[in-house]
């Protein structure tokens, strides 16, 4: 489902992205001028520089493009156990997104191309994923 909007009325794009992610969705912008789609957090179309967009919401499903398993975690993630940071191609979208996938112990747990799904967003670990 799409809706037109005046970009001047948007005050916090990241909050909107997070709200959609918390429902398991990926929020994007479709350029009203050239139809190029990018993530919600981009302010101008990178193809034609228009700032008039239509909101697009994608089911938070996708295929793993690449990933790492963080054996040495940064602050805020040291209590997360072995987890993966994953880049995945969003189904039906022309872009990738990245997120946090807990309980990933070895690379064989997550073959390239395997399916992942957005399950939410939390302040501590960001965009949460699970294997499908």
């Amino acid at each position: 489902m799409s809706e037109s909007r005046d970009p001047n009325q948007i005050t916090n794009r990241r909050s909107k992205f997070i709200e959609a992610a918390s429902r398991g969705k990926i929020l994007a912008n479709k350029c009203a001028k050239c139809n190029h789609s990018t993530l919600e957090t981009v302010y101008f179309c990178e193809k034609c520089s228009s700032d008039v967009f239509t909101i697009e919401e994608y089911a938070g499903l996708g295929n793993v493009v690449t990933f790492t398993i963080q054996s040495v975690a940064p602050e805020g993630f040291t209590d997360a156990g072995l987890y993966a940071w994953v880049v995945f191609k969003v189904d039906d979208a022309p872009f990738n997104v990245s997120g946090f996938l807990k309980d990933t112990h070895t690379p064989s747990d997550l073959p390239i191309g395997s399916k992942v799904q957005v399950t939410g967003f939390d302040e501590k670990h960001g965009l949460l994923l699970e294997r499908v």
Partner: protein
Amino acid sequence: MPNKVCVLGAGSTRYGKLNESVVELALDASKEAITSAGITPKEIQSGYISNVFGVSDKQVHMAPVIMSNLGIPYTPGLTIESACGSGSVMLREAFANVAAGFYDCVLAVGVEKITQVGTVQSTTLFSYCSDFFYEGGNGASFPGLFASIARAYLTRYKATEEDLAYVAVKNHENGILNPKAHVRKKITIEDVMQSPVVASPLKLYDCCPFSDGASALILCSEEFAKKKGKSYVEIIGSGRGASPAAVQSREDITIIPSTVNAARQAYEMAKITPKDVDFAEVHDCFTIAEVIDCEDLGFFKKGEAAEAIRSGATRRIGEIPINPSGGLKSKGHPIGATGIGQVVEVFEQFTGKAGDRTIQDAQIALTHNFGATGASAAVHIFKKVN
């Protein structure tokens, strides 16, 4: 056509875990560069300082402090930050101002002081250089980001983790010969392969160290350099590039567009091709980075650098020596200084000061330095002046 710009002097502290403050490190390197150039501080018309984490050593707005302590408090300076690429991006600005004729002689000093905060805090601070909303905020450290790039590369090109290990072994082989290197230690392929995993597929010895240190240059016009009658090096090419900040937004994760574009500009300005480069100092923050750099800079075709490195093509006696200084991997990576430190190596190579690291008969050298995962980059090309 810009004016010719020359490197008249160079200086550097040792890289490593150092006791001096961030300001003292910058001053030590600057004094050495000033002495090397045979000038007095009062001949410097502007200062360019690159630094990222000065706040961790209780000093931001660093330029006036450095200029004041060099005895030239009324000479303007500015501080430039571009993550790990700060040095080369700052060099570009200094180069541009001399090339444009605004100044005849400037100081370019890069500095970093980070080891005092410890490894966990350093890892966290570095993650702020990523596109944090999508990367650091989702648990990716810098080793993690490059590990994801490595996995993409190894998967596509059928290269191996052992191929990456050859980068580390070669750079340590060079770093042993550099008295100012952070990690002067010979390592083997087995050492790399058996070192602890940091972020799969990257292991500890695939990663550069956190380093303190400073490096400085005196840049000047050709006319100024000739008047001094000292050995100097000419900058014949300069380019800058950018990439999408987040790895997820790259069309091809195994290419760093900022490097490709900066290199193209620099080669065009210098009127040379990659085949004309006699050696290069490239940004090997992780072993995979050097593999990709070598391809993006045009030294090898896409997907072929890993095998070339394994064959010895990038050793000091190879067809294109890469990182004779030891690179970030062995010499160290004080991130605000790295891009300037690379030029110090070029200066020493071209003025007979590189000792056993000397690349015989070299006339043209290239430096390549990027910020974060290559979101920003600069490439410079140098010619030995005989």
